[in-house]
């Protein structure tokens, strides 16, 4: 099932498919520098209350992304994080 990264719940894992054109080039560049490449597996570790930025793990690094960015990263859900 294809979703945005922001739609993931805590415990979900996904594979990054790509970025929306809405997201500017500099944002996409920085995200890929952080390891959010198409094809990379990302786990949603925490979905903090009241719409606060969510916590994601990519490789061995943990990032917090807000909706403004995460909503424009297209992903394929892989299932719960083992």
């Amino acid at each position, binding site marked *: 099932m294809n979703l945005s990264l922001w739609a993931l719940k805590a415990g979900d894992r996904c594979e990054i498919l790509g970025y929306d054109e809405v997201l500017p080039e500099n944002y996409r560049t920085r995200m890929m520098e952080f390891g959010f490449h198409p094809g990379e597996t990302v786990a949603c570790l925490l979905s903090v209350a009241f719409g606060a930025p969510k916590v994601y793990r990519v*490789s061995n690094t943990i990032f917090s992304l807000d909706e403004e960015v995460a909503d424009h990263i297209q992903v394929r859900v892989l299932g719960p994080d083992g």
Partner: protein
Amino acid sequence: MAKIILIGSPNSGKSLLFNRLTGLHHKVANFPGITVDVGMGKMRDLPDTVLVDFPGTYSLQAISAEEKVAVDQFHLALQDPEVEQVLCLIDATRLEKSLYFTLQVIRDCERQHKPVTVLANMIDVLDNHGLSLDVAELGAALHTPVLPVSARTGKGADAVIRHVSAVRTAAVQPSRAHLLDAPDVLLRGTAHQLARRYGPKGDVLVRTQTRLDSFFLHSVTGGISFFAIMYLLFQSIFTWSAPAMDAVQGAITAMADWVVPLIGNHVARDFTSDALFGGIGAFLVFVPQIFVLTFVIGLLEDSGYMARAALICHKPLRLFGLTGKSFIPMLSGVACAIPGIYAARAIDSPRKRLLTYMAIPLMPCSARLPVYTLLIAAFIPAGTAFGGLVGWQGLAMFGIYFFGMLCALLVTGLISRTSKDHYTDLPFVLELPPYRVPGLVPLLRNSWSRSKHFVTKAGKIIFTVTVVIWVLGYFPNYGTDLGASWLGYLGRVVEPLFAPLGLDWRYAVAILTSFLAREVFVGTLGTIFGIEAADDNITPLVQHIQSSDLHIGSGLALLVFFAIALQCVSTVAILSKESGSGALALKMFVGYLLLAYAAALAIYHLAAVLG
């Protein structure tokens, strides 16, 4: 003197390693126009070699103006013949994030024929978790020497110094250039492959972090711990620094009591007493507060909690154009704007930092308290309502505090909407660093360095303004009558400006002198009204104001004026230094002055209409 550049990503432990390699002796310089620090220090055991600590950056492909300055400075430094080598620090526990940047550094150094050594930090963390990094294999893959180090324990630091020395004496041959023409996209792919091949396997490193995050970011336990930690932070600014502030004030007073009577000439005596000791005392008293706040904020940063606090606050502050990282500077501003402005350094987005600078002076700082206390006592009845549950004066104090905070958010909210914000700034992508035990010695040194910066940089401006105001208030009648001084004359000149608020020249003079510090307003009014030590006991001054014919609308107008106006030379001076823009500080001073005046005028007329 030979220079060695130390460069690395944020959160890679660069500052700690810099201190290890230099023996904690460094000085700080600023790039012109921005607040990016470049630390410099002689390398331990290599007295003819200077280590240059470049600001942490995620990439050499800058995506903001401020990053571009840092990257441009790095490229300029590579062209400097004195720069002999580059040390590139990576986080061995999070290779992917570090390796793309490392490959960019290696490529750009190859282009300038500068040898690079990669330092794999946090090797102790890998050891503790039974993991390892094959530095020889990684070095072979990068065609660059890779040395394991631990900035925290110091392990490997001696080997780094020996290696730097060996490269200098050509005992180590430079590597063959292999990335000269590699585009960034190729480097990104290579970094990804290398991280997969050599990076630590498994998730043991993030498991502890995730467990702690489940507590600190939980909607209940996270909220409680956030308020508890912020309460401690606030206490540190207000309460813990108070004894040291009192001690500084006491020492200056004692010194003045000893020195001043020894001076024969009465003009020199008055100058030494009022301008020199009074002026120096007015800003030196902030030093303990800056020291304590810098230390506590350092503890939060080093422990990894600061990033979590920013995450918790981000959503509500974003509504007003700010970021979660604005919260701590703004909270600090409730005690004093100066440490708040220093704390805003942690905000990586230039736009958000600017908006935070604009919010901080509107936060109700402690210097406003004596002014509010005087005006509320003079104009608000002391009665209570709801069976004694609500006191009008307490409600007024709460109201004026809340008004300041509301103004701060409204100003930033409005300004952030006047220009395009969406996607023109750095994205809110916050790396959550691992939780760590902070290193106390570097934190203490940093706090000392920040306090020294305040004294040396802001002190000159503050002292100059103090002397100017003293001269205006002292001459031509040698301090016998403030009303007959040049300052009194100036008060009468500007009186027409304050007349629409129902205020005469005496209040105008008090407002002028309060630019030194807001609380000076109380003492100046006391002097003009002939009331001794009004700033220690305000009751006679309150009675004097109450018995005068000053309208309540004027009192409320003064309250609103002081809530908004940037009446503090120390804040203006620090704003100018920290933002690197005297024009910004001037614009903020004038802008808030006009806004304060307009709001005061509106309140005065509203009060007149309501009777």
